[in-house]
């Protein structure tokens, strides 16, 4: 087990390095940090102030490797950035000057408050609906459900958000159309609408997927054995099918767990939830290289964490699999 973990971690190092290099090339080599400087300093900035800005942030260093004679090779942008990130010194945002540690720390909670309930509710609802569909096994209902699911999948997320916010908050006046309060009992009333929208927008795909998973399990031999034993259909579903389906579900679901922290771009923007959802996007558009590099670094760690988590959960849920 430990050996397995260590082996995996070694495998992760080149991936993280590759990711950082790729981001650097994609983002830094092809567009100069001057763009950031101009964005930050505004339309009226003079080249002198741009130059001063770049110098203060070390952006006037050589890009990948310092080949200037007399200077150490590692005194380059990429190496220093990487060095800082590896020690988890995230630095400060190029645009706002806020420490990134603070940005991520403050944004994580609201993002999680939005995504974790949405994740759990949508998982519960879609698993329940999928089981329900498998349970009743009615041709007409199946057809309608498939159609509805595909229909739900085919609507762009934006349309959900726009309509949802407009109709539910404007016509019905039940919940605030906007805003966020992480503390106290008012949090649910702010979160209800975005969470519901997030659940609905993901429902179609999930129900379809889980239904297919469960149906596949239903066709297995051991289900026949269970039914031949006299186990009732509901129990077959809830115990035999569910547990086996769960193993497949894990591979699909667990990998996305670490990304819950990244929040949801659209919902956060529309509902004024100060999460991490649009941190990366605004950073890309700004462009705010410090934020991009740090979030990609953390993002790739999370991705790899997700992979590892999937393996571990798999091993935990499926007795046939042993890590080693």
């Amino acid at each position, binding site marked *: 087990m430990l050996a397995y973990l260590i082996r995996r971690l070694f495998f992760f190092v080149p991936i993280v390095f*590759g990711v950082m290099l790729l981001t650097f090339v994609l983002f830094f080599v092809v567009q100069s940090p001057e763009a950031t400087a101009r964005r930050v300093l505004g339309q009226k900035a003079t080249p002198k102030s741009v130059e001063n800005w770049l110098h203060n942030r070390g952006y006037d260093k050589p890009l990948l490797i310092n080949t200037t004679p007399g200077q150490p090779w590692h005194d380059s942008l990429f190496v220093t950035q990487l060095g800082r990130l590896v020690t988890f010194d995230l630095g400060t945002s190029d645009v706002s000057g806020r420490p990134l540690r603070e940005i991520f720390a403050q944004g994580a909670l609201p993002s999680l408050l939005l995504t974790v309930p949405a994740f759990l509710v949508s998982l519960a609802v879609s698993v329940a609906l999928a089981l329900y569909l498998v349970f009743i096994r009615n041709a007409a209902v199946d057809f309608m459900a*498939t159609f509805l699911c595909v229909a739900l999948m085919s609507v762009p997320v*934006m349309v959900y958000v726009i309509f949802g916010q407009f109709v539910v908050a404007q016509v019905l006046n039940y919940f605030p159309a906007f805003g966020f309060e992480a503390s106290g009992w008012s949090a649910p009333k702010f979160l209800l609408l975005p969470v519901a929208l997030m659940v609905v927008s993901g429902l179609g795909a999930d129900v379809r997927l889980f239904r297919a998973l469960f149906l596949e399990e239903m066709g297995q031999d051991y289900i026949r054995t269970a039914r031949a034993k006299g186990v009732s259909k509901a129990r077959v579903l809830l115990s035999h099918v569910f547990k086996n389906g769960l193993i497949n579900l894990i591979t699909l679901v667990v990998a996305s767990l670490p990304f819950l922290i990244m929040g949801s771009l659209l919902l956060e923007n529309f509902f004024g939830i100060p999460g991490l959802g649009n941190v*990366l996007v605004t950073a*890309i558009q700004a462009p705010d290289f410090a934020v991009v590099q740090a979030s990609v670094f953390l993002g*790739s760690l999370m991705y790899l964490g997700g992979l590892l988590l999937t393996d571990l959960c798999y091993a935990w849920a499926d007795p046939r699999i042993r890590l080693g």
Partner: protein
Amino acid sequence: MKWLDQIWVQNLCLLAGYGLLARLVVWGLRSERWQTAWKHLRRDKLGLVSLCVIGLYLVVGTLESIVLPSASGSVTLLQRLTAGIPQEKSYSAPLATTALSVADPKPLLGRHVLGTDALGRDTLVQTLRATRSALWIGGLTSLIYIPLGVLLGLMAGYYRRWVDDAVQYVYSTVAAVPEILMLVAILMVLGKGLGSMAIALGITGWVGMARLIRGETLRQVERPYIAAAKALGQSDWRILTRHLLPNVMHLVLIKFVLGFSGLVLAEAVLSYLGVGAPVGTASWGTMIDASRSELSREPLVWWNLTASSCALFLMVLALNLFGDSLQRAFDPKRGA
């Protein structure tokens, strides 16, 4: 890229695309597996209806893709066909006779079934014209990610060892970079355009395909027929193209159809992020994006959002349903 603007080049590209598609279908239908699938599919009413809807979209998209010479450079066939519909000054409601204005309702030049947009263009025509963007994005992206994904997936599954390691390393790395960053960064480098969008989506999209094909290849390689082929001394290339490829091709087809709908939706999101279709190219994503502020207008301007979302919805729905039908047709046991 100047030569790309030539009228005949564009039309030729279109023709080549259709030729390729036809060739692939003919090639596929030669295999027994595809023939049985086609037999199943013919009995699947829903599948056939969706196929017809897709065909309809293809026709509209093609009409907009055929470029004709005109006085001011070039126009598309669809533009030529709808040239009779006048352009208004600004918004007007569906079938309205006057412009959308409370205080000063000026008479319109003509009737518009779905109203007009902010620049007074007919919404129906714009919606139809946008089909082209969706099809091009879906088509071009598939042309990039399918060969890339299939080739790498096959090689990884067949050769294993270091080839597998290398392919796995590359796709893990690509997958670990947040997708949105890849897309936006690539689009910023290449500039806006349908082509760049297809490239960006292709670069991020091949990972899933490669994974799928690699998995299936690993399974196929265990089968005796591969061992037999090897025993006969056939070359690796021949085994890859003649034996393995046909056996994973149905997966590619299904993934292509289902992935197509994903690509059409991705265009909408990219437009929200401001890296969507370029100016002058109608697309549903930009129409939806533009309608964000229209929804809060008084009186409400709803027809642009409705028209574009419905068109998008119908296409994605048809693709998804057809994809399902394909899946059932190829694997009747699973899709029950």
